[in-house]
């Protein structure tokens, strides 16, 4: 991990936070109020070589930046830290037999479509579940929260896959 890799992470972070607050927060589909939480893509594309503790801190900084813009202190950061923590476990579970090769990234184009789905779907669902359950703060209206989790996850997943095709094509 050199300075170039870290400046690329910084750039990704800035672009994704701005995209979330300037574009995606203005999207609002159906009366359910579905707003894709696209910024979660940042957690997905952090390189394998970044120290694990730093991955968690990145998740926290990411979530808290979005929180500042959305007037939701702690909501996005709580969900993001859970996701960053879970990513470590998920990467462990689906790792190739010899571990991840140096210089590869967790991108759709490099790892393949089915690998990327089995990697991103659980992370996005957990992120959204944490987000909406903390937002609703309890189990009243649980069916509605559940619907929001499912449909927003699908929406985010679609945008994440599109973004992979656009930004990381070879």
């Amino acid at each position, binding site marked *: 991990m050199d300075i170039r890799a870290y400046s690329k992470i910084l750039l990704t972070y800035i672009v994704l936070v701005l995209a979330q607050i300037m574009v995606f927060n203005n999207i609002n589909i159906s009366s359910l109020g579905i707003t894709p939480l696209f910024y979660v893509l940042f957690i997905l594309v952090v390189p394998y070589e970044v120290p694990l503790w730093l991955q968690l801190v990145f998740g926290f900084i990411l979530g808290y930046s979005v929180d500042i813009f959305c007037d939701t202190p702690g909501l996005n950061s709580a969900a993001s830290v859970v996701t960053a923590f879970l990513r470590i476990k998920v990467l462990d579970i689906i790792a190739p037999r010899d571990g991840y090769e140096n210089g590869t990234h967790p991108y759709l184009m490099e790892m393949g479509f089915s690998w990327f789905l089995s990697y991103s779907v659980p992370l996005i669902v957990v992120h959204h579940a944490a987000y909406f359950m903390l*937002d609703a703060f309890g189990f009243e209206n649980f069916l509605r929260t559940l619907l929001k989790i499912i449909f927003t996850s699908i929406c985010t997943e679609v945008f994440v896959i599109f973004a992979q095709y656009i930004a990381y094509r070879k």
Partner: protein
Amino acid sequence: MWFIFGMDSLLNFLKRIHILLIFVVLEAISLTSLIGGDVRRNSVFNTSANYIAGHVYDLTWRYVGYFYLREENASLMRQLSKIRSNSSSSYIIDTARFHDKLDTLGKLKYRYITASVVKNSVSRQNNFITLDQGSANGVREDMAVISASGVVGVIVAVSEHYASAISLLNRKIGISAKLKTNDFYGSIIWLGEDYRKAVLNEIPNHVELHQGDTVVTSGYSSIFPPGIPIATIESFEKNTEDNFYKINVKLLTDMKCVSNVFIIENLMQDEQLNLESLENKFVQ
């Protein structure tokens, strides 16, 4: 020797669980700021009324705002036609008697400040709105926010050039409301579901209701002037348990595309609040 050995194994232990430890610490920070998220306490610093966020949203709104112009224009035209039809040019003088104008007899109680929405949300349980007028333009906390079609929210935090308002779509506020037809009062509460719907509580069972009745602000709080439309009754049923109606209402302001609002200053708010605080003396 034992303590060196102990220290060593402690360090080893910490090394093994340091990821979990960092996770717990970060999560604790997030959750405490989420749960301790009192609307007023972390105003200005944590809300988007802060400087950078305000500017970013200003920039966004400059472009996104165009998408809402059609609805906004229609609503302004309706408002304008209402004002035109009430203005003096729409009346003919049919008497030779001299009339005093209201503004020389009356005393100004409410003052209006126009503002634009720079940030809005409807998809969360506790929604807020950021406006582009701040303390430099005379905006203070506890001022009412309305649109051309009805109630929008209440200012909770103010920075120099921006103000943060708690939206009607926020489970932490209820707005004192009454029925336009017969003045029975209750409160409008959003249940965190559809952004177009809310409920009206505390209307007793014996009142006669009709679908489509208008619900307006009661004027009992020191924030909203009386008679500002909030919602219309969509459906209602009698609740036999506590003798109050269960009323579903449809909000008049489309909170999803609200972009220009009025901030209302009650010039007699302090006087009213000071007087009301004296009531506590008689309770004790």
